[in-house]
């Protein structure tokens, strides 16, 4: 029996994942339209998700936001979805945090992140990996 370490060389690795059905996003768009978009997505994300695959892109971005929330591992923390943004660097999706979540990530010692998005014919999924150094002392 071995007890696996929770950190390597002083760095903790955190992982979050989530799956979102396209149909859920399509239903939200049909029921709440712009109200849904404005509550959850940044202007840039809305601009990036246009055309016939709009629900696919939005579902993947929502999955990424929920995956990030799981990485924080603080259920009583407020998570304004718009403070978590998926951007692109060529083919690579990237994460950008702002506001209270950017501050909290800094306090938790987040150093770098990696985001992977995928989808099947009916679901989108996201995996987020974050490397943390020492958390800031309070």
């Amino acid at each position: 029996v071995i007890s696996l370490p929770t950190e390597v060389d002083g760095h903790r690795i955190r992982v979050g994942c989530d799956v979102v059905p396209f149909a859920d996003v399509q239903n939200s768009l049909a029921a709440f339209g712009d109200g849904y978009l404005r509550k959850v997505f940044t202007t840039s994300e809305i601009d990036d998700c246009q055309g016939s695959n709009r629900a696919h892109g939005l579902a993947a971005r929502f999955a990424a936001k929920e995956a990030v929330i799981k990485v924080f591992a603080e259920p009583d923390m407020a998570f304004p979805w718009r403070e978590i943004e998926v951007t692109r660097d060529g083919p690579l999706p990237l994460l950008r945090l702002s506001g209270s979540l950017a501050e909290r990530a800094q306090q938790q010692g987040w150093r770098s992140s990696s985001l992977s998005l995928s989808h099947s014919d009916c679901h989108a999924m996201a995996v987020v990996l974050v490397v943390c150094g020492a958390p800031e002392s309070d």
Partner: protein
Amino acid sequence: VIQKKIRDVLVAHGRMAVNAGEVDDQADLYDLGLTSHASVDVMLALEDAFDIEFPDEVLKKSTFASVRNIEQVIQDLVKAVA
């Protein structure tokens, strides 16, 4: 009256496997099948039903974890508006 409106919204938008009209007001809605994405719909429908807006600071998992929790947050928001 507040709980009745909350339950009506959960039935319409919660997409849970159980009848939200009859669940215990302290039952864990996530355990009963409420997903994070469905909680967005529930929040938007509650904003319409009560003519309120959920500010960023109440966008917590725990806010939507039970009928009782939702009721408490709405009561506070309605009071703040009045």
